Every structure is written in structure tokens, then in C-alpha cells.
């Protein structure tokens, strides 16, 4: 903590220095102003339009995709990305998992998590709620990513929040939405009789004594002793039927010519699935996620030539749950129905063999946990039209500070549990030998503290020149940027600094060319070359504007291409460049004075520092075409990209000779290629009052390992070069062992001693041994290569219907991620989901078996990646369905009321029937959402 204080102190001083500079610059600009203001007549300043924005979307060669405003409007969930499944080709979004507080959808842009900007400033997309968002702009173009220097390599998304506008009427709106979310494809666990019988089978197959006698099995079957031989459905006992959601917003938008604003306040409350939450009157363990967001975006023309913008957002999130909420789901999955009762004699049930895992006890008597995350995002910019120097010149200074703090408060309670130790005597009487474990102090112990904070600052000083010369338009920018991201903890903070020049030239709205060069550095590299140049060029040609182009079906045709470089510094850890020595190495032993042995410690060099550390870089080449056809009712766009990612840090032991005499740290040797195609097609038309739109996107991304420092591989098929980065690998299954003779005649399986019913594998290299050298590539990658979506948007007078489908293909997942497929292993549970979908091997059904024999031991022969466990995880889901009806001018003071019902995650067509294909692990359940809401505009 001391280190942190010193660092903060030092950085604060730097920030103060920066602030001084900002003030000086603002002051001097104001000086200019006051002097010149009287000289100039009343002029509009088109130069300041979109001040601070480097890319002028209407006059640029840069290829970008913009989200559909209706999709954002119709999004029912809070997160922006939840509304955009399959809407923007290349932006692959996948559902969030877990409890509401952490359930953020994950997304990648051509295989990487991109840089997310909010109003041009790097921020966290989870800070926003969908109601604040105007547009989401996705850049895959080389020139756009080069502008962002050391942060651009993985793609850039710019989310523009709603701003005020010059309009006659003030727009005031409020909305309320109520949702219920039941579980989607929940597992079903076996009743205690089935569990007990299966456990006996598994133990027999392992050569261990049976656990339950025939009398005990009968007790389970007939429920004769409900406390000693219980039958508890823990899953449904712990989890209620549906989550309840409330969402409320209120926003105001308006403005005049010289002043406009947008303000929003939004509140949401999510109530989770945990039951048994208020059994202790000192705290309420209900799973709650409460959020309050407030935003104000203001733009003011301070003078005719000066514009000031202030965007302020604060967000407060509070999470309320039982203590150790992340273990409760594990406990629910692991606890068999026949293990112990919920309570016996008022004391929580338990069994010393399972440990302290009674899920209901964990829900209600383990204490309470609360987490509060508060974020403040503020950006202030001042733009000055410098026409007094030359026409079209302007300068903007932008300063953003973002602060986030997460605090937690915890109260912990211990509870007792009683192990009944029941047995049934031969004559049928029950004998229990109860032992109570744990302490019953009922005292809450409290703990609280700051979990994490970050403080980001971002400064942009932009000199911009926008001018039209006849048919040519020029938009040149010079940007100086400094940004720092300070996070609690050692080596967590990062700083970047850059100077970027961009020149966008367009002629007659026909030819576009953008040139970008960024000279950028990152604090990730301390001793090597910190700064690198990232050049890029992007060009576009609107063929349909050419004289030779005969307009027919195609009303607009544009082609564009780009080539450029960008960097990514976040994957470069600190402390790679220094040589240092470490203790704890072997020394030698000498004789002490008393004849005893004294050990003498040893020191040596730790490992060889990274040679010439650089940050990761990406070389991007893109081509694309856009067309509008049939009187612009149909639009098609296609993009292809070929990217080379290099300077990736990799382990290098396999390519460094041992003669060096030291282990080596990671070197910048990794090279990977990515290529793919994005397609989007849209058809929009209207017939009188009926308007309809169909749209679809498809994105195919492929990756290839060019260099991965794998070193020497004794067999060619073991080499991973040329394979996809996320390729699935495993052993190839060759049936199950039928009997001991079969085992004796097969290659030696070295992973674990095998018995009949275990998986038999193919010996790839014919060395008569099954080991690491028999692992081959199989199926498709574990990250989908194909991602597609289509949506329908229908409007008829006041009725609107909207549906959004999305799917993936070429995707493999391993069933080993789910504990349902490792039943009874290490004292765990067995499910009906498993028993009904699969047939486990027994001697009788060996020809029908789909799974290896049951076992209670962590059998590393069976439970390892192989063709037994990989499944095709392609799916097609109905992500959104919404039907709404708007009443216009229903009364005097209301201008419209829209009522709607909508649903999310309604159904999925896939191969993984027992669980949501995006959520196979033992997680908080996937949900379907049903909403009813009201949008009122004043």
C-alpha cells in the first residue's frame, strides 16, 4: 500500500503539471478570442462542427459500420451489446454469464476484444446503459486503427452517446419496463434412489466397497426416513423460478442554436434467483443488482468561435448477495440429493465426507456480502475556431477524467452442521450417530475495504484544418495525446503518449484517400524503443459516380481498401527487461562445528531478460465494397481482411539452446495470421403504411499460427503451426475397453490405470504407448469461425414487430466443462440430464454405450480432451422478439405512449440440448427474459 501511495503522489504531481498546461492553453486561446471577437462579424462556424472528432464519417475513405438506431431502441436489456447480436458483421457478441452484476456480454472484433471508445475516449463499455447510446460505430479499417496507435491493433469501436440538438420542441421522455426471467435449460439432478444406485455401480467399477446397502436403497426409494435418507432437489430448493427486473429511465433532450443538452437518469433493479435469503433478521441475502445512472451532455457556444462541451456521467452499482455467492452454484451442482437433509433438529444438515457444502446453509447462514462500484466519467473539451490565423483551422483541447472505485463490505458467519451418520440394521431399524461440526457462535464478523480503484486521465490537443477547395475537401488533423490508466496494485497501471497526423482528402465525393501516421509509445516498454511509427493509408472510390457507370439496378457502388499498422500494448507485462538475481537456488552443504550438516543457500541469475522488447503489432489489409440496389432499397456490403499479428510475446524455451545456461523470458517471436470475410445485406421498403426491413450479416474469421516457438516436435502432426489459434486438440477415441484381455492387447495407456469400460484411444505414432504424443487436432476451433445474424423489422401504422436471430457455426466445445459429464467423480453428484441423454458403459450394454463407465475417482484417462467429449456447439438463437403499439397524442400533455412486450433468448436450435450452448459450465443458470414496458414522450 505504501508503494501505491508514493506512486499516486508522484502521478498526481504529473497530473497537476498537465493541468497547468491545459490552463495555460485555454487561457491563451481565450486571450486571442477577446482580442479578435470584436473584429469579426456574426458568422456560423462550420469548422467547429464535430469538433474533436478526427474522422469525418461523411467524407472519409475509412470503412466503418454503424449500428441500426431501431436495434438500439428496441434493445430490452441494459447492456448496449445485448441489442447488437449479429447486427454488425465482424462484431461477434456472445451472451454474458453469471449473476446480473457481472453478466456483461463478451464481444470480439475479428477475433479480438477491441478498444472501446465512448465519445472518442477509451472507456469501459459496461459503464453505459443502452438508453444513453445514439450510435455504435465499428472500425475495422487500417487507417482508423492506426490513429489509435498503441491501442488500435485489435480494432476500434466508438460509441456515441446521445447529444442535444437545435430543435423547437423540448423532448422529454420516460419509460418503465418490467421483466421476468425464468431459467433456460436448467439441469435436472437425480433423485436419491437413482443417485445411490449409480454410486454403488461406480464404486463397484472402481473396485471399492459399496456405499449403500440394499436396505438403504429401499429407504431412499420409499422415502421411509426423510431425514436420514433424504431426497432433496437442491437445485430447485435454492433457486426460485424467475428473476424480476425493473428498469426506469427519464431523459430530456433539447437545445437552441448556441446551446444544447441531453440529460438522462436511469434506475434499474434486478432480483436474482437465490431463495432463503431472509432467514437471519440481521441481513437480507437476496441477490440484488441495483444501478443508478445519470448523464448530462452539454454543448455551449461560449462565443461565436468557441465551443465548450461537457459530458458528465456517473453510475452507481450495488450488489447484494449471500457471502461466498460464487461457491453456492458449485455447492448446488455437487451436492447429491441423498447426501443430507436441509436441516435436522434445527441444525443444518451435512456430511463430513462432503465438507461444508449445504447450499441452503450457504444461502442463508454464511453471512452477507455487498459490493458497491461507483464510476464517474467526465470529459471537458474546448474548441476554438482559428480563422483569424487561417480559414478552416481550429484547435481543440479535450480533457477526460474517469474514476472508478469498488468497495466491498462483508459480514461472515459460521454455522454448525450435523452429520447424522445413519445406518439401517438388518431388521430395518434406523440407527443414527449424529456428530455436530462447526461452531455455532452466531456472531457476525465484519470486513470491508476497497477492492479496486482506477483513475484514468486522457488529454487530447488537436489542431485541425477543414476546408473545401472547389470539388476537393481536405480534413487534416494533428493530435497530441497523453493518457494514463492508474489502477490499484503493483504493475497494473499503464500510460501512453502519441503524436498523430491524419489527412483526409476527397475529390468530388468520388475519390477518397486518408493518410495517417501515428508516432506512439507506451509505458510497457521501459528500456527498449518505446516509440514506434504506425502509418496507414485508406482509399475509396465511388464507382457509381463515374461517367462510365450506367445506373441500372445498382444505384450506388463504392469500393475501398486500406493498408496500415497499429499496436497493442496491453498484452505486454512489466518487468521483462531487467536482469535480476534470485535467492532460493540450490547451494551446498557443509559440516558445522558440532558435526551437523549446515545448508548454505544459493543465488543465481533468474532468467534472461527479453531481448529488445516491443509491443504487439498488427498489419492490416482490407478490401471492401458497398452497393445500393433497386432504388436504394437493398444495400449490400462486403469486406475482406487479411491481418498479420506479430511481435507477440511467447515462451521461447523450446527454441533456445540449453547451452545458453539460463531459462529465457518471453520473446517477441509470435506471428499469427487472420483472414476473413464480412457480409451484410439489407432490404428496406415500404408500401403505404406498411414498412419492412430485413437484414442479415455473416462473418467468417480464420486464424493461422505462423510462429509459436513450439520447437522440436518428434512427429509432424504434433506441430501446431498452420493450425487455427483456437483449434481443438485431443486424443482420438477408439471405443471402450471390453475386458481385461482387450486391455492387455492394446497399447499401454499411460495417463491412468485402465479398467474395462474406460476409453480406448488410437495410437497415432504406433509406438504402442498412449501419451502426449498421440494428441491430434480434431474438429473445429473452440471459438466460432462463423457468426451470422438476421433481423426483421416491420411497422404498420402504429404497430411495430421486431425479431433478431443470431447463430454461430464451426464451433466446438468440450463437455468436460460441465460437471454433469463427470458424474460422481470425487464425491459429487449425478444428474437425470446425464442419465437420460447418455448411456454409460456397463458390461451388459457395452455395445450401446455413449459414455465411459461410472467412476468416483479423478480418472485422467477418461476425463481428458478427446473425441469423446467434443461436441458441435453451433447454434441459432432467437435473441430478441418485440411487439409494440404506439398511441399518438392520447391526451393533451402527452405526445405519445408506446406499450410493448418483448422477449430475449427465447429458443435455441443446437446440438447441446441439455444446456445453453453458450453456458455449459456449472454457472448461474441461463435465462429467458420476458418484458412488458411503457415509453412515454411528453
Amino acid at each position, binding site marked *: 500500500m505504501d508503494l501505491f501511495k508514493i506512486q499516486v503522489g508522484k502521478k498526481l504531481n504529473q497530473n497537476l503539471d498537465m493541468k497547468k498546461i491545459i490552463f495555460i492553453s485555454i487561457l491563451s486561446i481565450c486571450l486571442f478570442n477577446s482580442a479578435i471577437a470584436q473584429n469579426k462579424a456574426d458568422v456560423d462556424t462550420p469548422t467547429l462542427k464535430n469538433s474533436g472528432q478526427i474522422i469525418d464519417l461523411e467524407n472519409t475513405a475509412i470503412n466503418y459500420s454503424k449500428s441500426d438506431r431501431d436495434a438500439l431502441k428496441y434493445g430490452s436489456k441494459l447492456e448496449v451489446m445485448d441489442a447488437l447480436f449479429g447486427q454488425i458483421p465482424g462484431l461477434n457478441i456472445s451472451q454474458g454469464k453469471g449473476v446480473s452484476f457481472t453478466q456483461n456480454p463478451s464481444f470480439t472484433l475479428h477475433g479480438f476484444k477491441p478498444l472501446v471508445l465512448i465519445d472518442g475516449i477509451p472507456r469501459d463499455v459496461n459503464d453505459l446503459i443502452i438508453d444513453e447510446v445514439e450510435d455504435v460505430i465499428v472500425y475495422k479499417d487500417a487507417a482508423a486503427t492506426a490513429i489509435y496507435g498503441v491501442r488500435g491493433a485489435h480494432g476500434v469501436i466508438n460509441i456515441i452517446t446521445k447529444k442535444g440538438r437545435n430543435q423547437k420542441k423540448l423532448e422529454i421522455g420516460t419509460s418503465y419496463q418490467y421483466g421476468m426471467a425464468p431459467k433456460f435449460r436448467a439441469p435436472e439432478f437425480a433423485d436419491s434412489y437413482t443417485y445411490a444406485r449409480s454410486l454403488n455401480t461406480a464404486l463397484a467399477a472402481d473396485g471399492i466397497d459399496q456405499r449403500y446397502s440394499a436396505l438403504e436403497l429401499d429407504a431412499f426409494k420409499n422415502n421411509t426416513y426423510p431425514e436420514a435418507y433424504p431426497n432433496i432437489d437442491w437445485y430447485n430448493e435454492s433457486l426460485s423460478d424467475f428473476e424480476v427486473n425493473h428498469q426506469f429511465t427519464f431523459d430530456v433532450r433539447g437545445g437552441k442554436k448556441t446551446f444544447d443538452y441531453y440529460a438522462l437518469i436511469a434506475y434499474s433493479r434486478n432480483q436474482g434467483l437465490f431463495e432463503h435469503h431472509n432467514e437471519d433478521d440481521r441481513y437480507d441475502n437476496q441477490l440484488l443488482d441495483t444501478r443508478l445512472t445519470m448523464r448530462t451532455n452539454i454543448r455551449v457556444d461560449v462565443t461565436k468561435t468557441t465551443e465548450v462541451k461537457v459530458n458528465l456521467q456517473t453510475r452507481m452499482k450495488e450488489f447484494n448477495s449471500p457471502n461466498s455467492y460464487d461457491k453456492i452454484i458449485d455447492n448446488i451442482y455437487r451436492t447429491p440429493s441423498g447426501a443430507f437433509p436441509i436441516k435436522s433438529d434445527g441444525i443444518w444438515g451435512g456430511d463430513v465426507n462432503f465438507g461444508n457444502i449445504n447450499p441452503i446453509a450457504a444461502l442463508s447462514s454464511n453471512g452477507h456480502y455487498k459490493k458497491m462500484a461507483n464510476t464517474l466519467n467526465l470529459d471537458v473539451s474546448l474548441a476554438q475556431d482559428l480563422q483569424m490565423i487561417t480559414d478552416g483551422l481550429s*484547435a481543440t483541447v479535450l480533457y477526460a477524467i474517469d474514476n472508478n472505485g469498488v468497495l466491498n463490505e462483508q459480514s461472515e458467519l459460521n454455522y454448525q452442521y450435523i452429520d447424522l451418520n445413519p445406518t439401517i440394521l438388518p431388521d430395518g431399524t434406523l440407527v443414527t450417530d449424529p456428530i455436530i461440526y462447526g461452531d455455532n457462535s452466531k456472531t457476525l464478523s465484519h470486513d470491508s475495504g476497497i477492492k479496486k480503484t482506477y483513475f484514468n486521465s486522457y488529454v487530447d490537443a488537436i489542431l485541425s484544418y477543414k476546408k473545401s477547395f472547389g470539388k476537393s475537401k481536405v480534413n487534416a488533423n494533428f493530435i497530441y495525446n497523453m493518457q494514463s490508466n492508474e489502477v490499484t496494485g503493483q504493475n497494473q497501471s499503464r500510460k501512453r503518449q502519441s503524436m498523430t497526423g491524419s489527412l483526409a482528402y476527397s475529390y468530388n465525393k468520388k475519390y477518397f484517400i486518408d493518410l495517417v501516421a501515428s508516432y506512439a509509445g507506451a509505458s510497457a516498454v*521501459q528500456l527498449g524503443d518505446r516509440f514506434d511509427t504506425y502509418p496507414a493509408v485508406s482509399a475509396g472510390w465511388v464507382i457509381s459516380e463515374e461517367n462510365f457507370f450506367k445506373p441500372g439496378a445498382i444505384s450506388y457502388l463504392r469500393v475501398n481498401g486500406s493498408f496500415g499498422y497499429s499496436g497493442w500494448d496491453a498484452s505486454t507485462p512489466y518487468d521483462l527487461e*531487467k536482469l535480476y538475481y534470485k535467492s532460493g537456488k540450490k547451494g551446498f552443504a557443509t559440516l558445522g562445528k558440532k558435526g551437523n550438516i549446515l545448508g548454505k543457500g544459493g543465488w543465481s541469475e533468474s532468467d534472461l531478460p527479453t531481448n529488445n522488447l516491443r509491443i504487439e503489432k498488427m498489419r492490416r489489409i482490407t478490401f471492401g465494397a458497398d452497393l445500393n440496389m433497386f432504388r436504394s432499397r437493398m444495400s449490400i456490403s462486403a469486406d475482406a481482411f487479411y491481418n498479420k499479428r506479430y511481435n507477440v510475446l511467447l515462451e521461447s524455451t523450446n527454441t533456445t539452446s540449453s547451452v545458453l*545456461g539460463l531459462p529465457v523470458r518471453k520473446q517477441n517471436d509470435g506471428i499469427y495470421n487472420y483472414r476473413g470475410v464480412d457480409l451484410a445485406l439489407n432490404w428496406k421498403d415500404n408500401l403505404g403504411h406498411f414498412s419492412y426491413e430485413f437484414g442479415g450479416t455473416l462473418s467468417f474469421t480464420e486464424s493461422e499460427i505462423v510462429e509459436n516457438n513450439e520447437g522440436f516436435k518428434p512427429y509432424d502432426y504434433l506441430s501446431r503451426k498452420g493450425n487455427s489459434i483456437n483449434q481443438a486438440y485431443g486424443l482420438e477415441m477408439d471405443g471402450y475397453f471390453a475386458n481385461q484381455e482387450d486391455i492387455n492387447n492394446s497399447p499401454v495407456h499411460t495417463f491412468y490405470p485402465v479398467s474395462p469400460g474406460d476409453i480406448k484411444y488410437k495410437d497415432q505414432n504406433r509406438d504402442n504407448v498412449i501419451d502426449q504424443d498421440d494428441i491430434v487436432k480434431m474438429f473445429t476451433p473452440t471459438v466460432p469461425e462463423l457468426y451470422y445474424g438476421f433481423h426483421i423489422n416491420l411497422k404498420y401504422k402504429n404497430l411495430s414487430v421486431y425479431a433478431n436471430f443470431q447463430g454461430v457455426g464451426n464451433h466446438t466445445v468440450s463437455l468436460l466443462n460441465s460437471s454433469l459429464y463427470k458424474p460422481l467423480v470425487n464425491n459429487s453428484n449425478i444428474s437425470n440430464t446425464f442419465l437420460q441423454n447418455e448411456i454409460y458403459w456397463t458390461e451388459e450394454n457395452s455395445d450401446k454405450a455413449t459414455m465411459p463407465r461410472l467412476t468416483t475417482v479423478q480418472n485422467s484417462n477418461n476425463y481428458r480432451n478427446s473425441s469423446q467429449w467434443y461436441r458441435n456447439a453451433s447454434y441459432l438463437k432467437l435473441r430478441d422478439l418485440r411487439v409494440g403499439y404506439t398511441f399518438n397524442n392520447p391526451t393533451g400533455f402527452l405526445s405519445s405512449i408506446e406499450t410493448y412486450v418483448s422477449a430475449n433468448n427465447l429458443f435455441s436450435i443446437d446440438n447441446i440440448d441439455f444446456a445453453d450452448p453458450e453456458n455449459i459450465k456449472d454457472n448461474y443458470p441461463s435465462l429467458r427474459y420476458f418484458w412488458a414496458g411503457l415509453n412515454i414522450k411528453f
Partner: protein
Amino acid sequence: MFKVTKYKRLSLSFLLGALLLMTSCDYLDFDESNRLYDEESVFSNFGQTSNLLNHLYSYVQQDFGVIGSGAMRDCASDDAEFANPNNPVQDMNNGNWSALNVKDDVFEKLYQGIRAANNFIAHFDPKAYDGYKNNSAYLKWKNAFQYYPYEARALRAYMYFELAKRYGNIPLTTDVLTIEQANSIGKAPFNDVIAFITKECDEIYNHLPVSYLDTKNKETGRVTKGFVMALKSRALLYAASPLHNKDNNKEKWEDAAKASLALIDSVKSKGWYTKESGANAVNNFASKEAILFKNNKNSNKFEQYNFPVRFTSGATSITGVCPTQNLVDAFQTKNGFDVTLTESGWVCDDPEFDANAPYQNRDPRFYQTILYDGEDFKGQTIETFVGGQDYGPVTSGGSATGYFLKKYIIEDTNFAPDNKVTAPHFYVVFRYGEILLNYAEAMMGAFNDPDYKDGTFTLSAREAVNEVRGAVPMPAITEASAELFNNLLRNERRVELAFEDHRFWDIRRWDIGDATQKDIYAVQIVDNAGEKTYKKFKYETRSWSDKMNLYPIKQQELFRNTNLEPQNTGW
């Protein structure tokens, strides 16, 4: 109104820009590292510097089961068989040893030691501690670090010898390498490596003490003058041996003899060491014969692997090292007669020899090396006869050959949870007895006459070997024929230095692998009501190929640095 010219405006804007840039040139500086000791601080802190040297000592090789899970290197020679059929050492005997399946892989480890030594020698500077001149411990430090660079050089020479004896031609460097250099360095021929070792030994031996007990810093276990001379003796002997001396250059033998004689003379004139009885130096920190020990802390792991299973109270179920009948046949009776076991019993010319009690009255070193049927051990008797308590398949505790290991075993070790006894083990790296045998062998190689001596070579081969025999005590060797004397000399070496990591290397440098390593024999003892009958039987036929005289370089290493090719012949 205040008139601002265009130029003034422009210049002011540039000034602004310059201001912004200048004040944040070090904006990206970042250092939150925590307690990282760099080179400068380590080499100016005495404690850390001496720990760097301590680390070099960890590369001294010992063999308490170095091939894996208790298997000594001698189990890949005709001296012993390791009982566990699944142990990695079996691959060395059954033909599965290859460049893709390497054993005793010290290539990486020893080069780490060599780099540490090169780095130490390059950076060690006694003047760095000048700042501590007024520290009370300074004199003690000064006394210790006068030897430091020479200790490092001695250990480095030793490490190169260990590499060369295994791999033959190896990369040789005294520089601290970069990655590019390491990936492109070529191999130096074996003889160049030996020449380097010899040169180093000559340059440093005068700078090391005879014994640390004479210095202020009484740390035993450090390298001494004697160590350096012994290393030179062994290295030159290996260089003169048939494997590396194909044209039988007599000069190499003479150099080897001279090196050994130098140490023998110092011993005789200054009394540095005393030849004790047989293998008395083993596990004996008070021994006056040992030149260097590798000391180990208290442990019972070695006994756990090698005790007859019934003495390990369930800690293991398979015995470890089992000496072969081939080795037992090397031990004479205490009167100096050979004893051999055949398919129909013992054969011996000694009139005192009793075929029913064949293990009585043997060379005293026999009792130091082998645990035999009928011996008293931990209050009980060893029973490897058919049906005895120590008889049975190897997987349930029987001996593969009828014998168990005695050398280096500490009998008092105990495993019972309430009475656990562990003991420190002292591994002999060099001892005086070896030097005498080295000398005798070198003399025979140079002059082929057991009794030859002259002004330079003041001791004859026979005198040297009989000094070893006399200390046991065993009667002197009187054989006149040079060829037969040579055989007896080799046998003496086998018997004196059994299980001290010599046999495995000796059969290789003498190039006798094909003749001796294939047939492994054991004894079958049948007890007929008190009368025991003994029979020799073949336990296994091992596969031997002459390529096994050198280790293969791991295939991965050849891939990483193609200049390490060609691979050792035959692999």
C-alpha cells in the same frame, strides 16, 4: 484593440505545442518493480556474492539414484541390475535409449552451472567490497573471497569434464553467451576440452588451499588444491584411454601418469591424505582419504529404495539396486585367489575356500559393497535363497540377482513412523585411492611394464596398486605378465571403487562394452536343510551397441542449434 500579427500568433501556437511536448518527455517512465536485485547490487553484497558461489557447488554430481527413482548409474553397467522393470534405467539396457528418449540428462543443468561460473568469474571484483573495509566481518570475508574466482574456475573445469565424458565433443566457452551465440555455437573436440581443463587446473591449483580447516573460514566441502590435481589426473586418464586415444599415443598416457604422480608426491611428502582401508571414505566425514565430498542433509530416501523390502516397513514394495553375480565374481578371497560361480557351483583355487560358505573370508571390500545371503543385517539374516524371506519376484521385494546393495547404505536407517531414523550421506567425488589406481593404469598404458620406474616416474604401477591393496589389507599383486597384470589392475579398480560411479565410465573408456555388458548373471541359492547349493543363471541379456560409449545429444537441442550436429555416431 490589440494588434496581433500573424507571425506572433503562429509563434505563440508553436510555443504552446512545444510546452506541451517538453514537459512530458519522461511521461512514460514507469517502475513499480519490487525487490529486484540487479547485477551491481549482488556483486557488491558479500552475502549474495558468496551465495552465487554456493550455487556453483550444487552442480557437483553425485549418484544416489540419478537415473530416476532410485536407479544408480551402475545399474546400466554389469555391476548391478535395478529391480523395478519400469524404471527409466531399463531403457538404457533394452535398446530404447535414443536421442528422443534421453537418460541422465545433465546437458541443460551443467550448462546452467557453466554460465553461472562464467558470469561469476566475469563480474567478481574484490574491490567492490572496499566500502565495507571498516566492517567487523571484513577480514573474514577477505580471507574467503581470495579463493572465490579460483573455486569458480575449478568447478567450471569440473563441469566441462562431466559434460565431455558423457557427450564427447561439446560446446566450450568462457563467455557469458547471448541467445544468438548460444543458438549458433559449435562443438569443440574432446581433446580440446581436456586441454582446456588441464590448462585451467595448472593455472589455479596454487591459488587454492590444501584444506579449508587451515583457513579462517573452516567450510569443508569446498574445492581444494587436491581437488584440482585429482581432476587433472582423472581428465588426462580419460583422454589417454582407448575410447578417446584411438592411435594409442603413449605421450597421453605419460601426461596422465605425471598428473597423478604430482598429487601422490604431495601426499607422500606433505601428508595431505592417507590411504585408508578400502572404501572407508564412503559416508565418513572424518575420512582422511577423501579429497572432496558432496554433503547431503539427513535423509533415508536412498535406503528406502535399496533396503531389502521387508526392512522398509511398507514404504516401498520393490527393491532397488541389486549387484550382479558379474561383480561378485570380481571379489577375491582374502588370500588373493579369484572366486567364480558357475552353473554347477563355486570354483576357487584357495585351499581355505568353502563352497558351502562362499561368502566367508572374502576380500574385506566385499563386505563393504554387497549384502549377501546369510549376512546379518539390522539384527536379522538376509535370506535370498529360494523360499527365503528376501526371495521372490522383484515386484514384490525379491532381489533380482540374489544380492542387495551395501555400499553407501546406512544400516541404522529406520522407517517406522514412531522410530524414524535418517542420516546424512557423504558422496565421495574424489579420493586418494582412485589417484593411485589412475597412476598405475597410466603407467601401464605408457610403458606396459608393471615394474617400470625412473627419474620422472618414481613409483611403479605395481607399487601404486599394492599400496591400495595393502591398505585393505589384501595380499600384493605379484603377477609378472603385463597383460594379466593389466586385467588384475582393472579388476582392482572395479572392486575398490564399486558403486562410486566409476564402472559405468570405465567400461566405456576401455571400449569393452561389447564384451562385458551383454550378459548379466545372478545366483540361485537352494537351501537343502542347512546345506546351500549355488548355481549361476543368466538374469537378462542386455542390448549393447558401441554408440552407447557416448550419450546422445537430445534431439531438441540439435533442432535448436544446428551447429551442434553431427549427433554422436550411431545415435
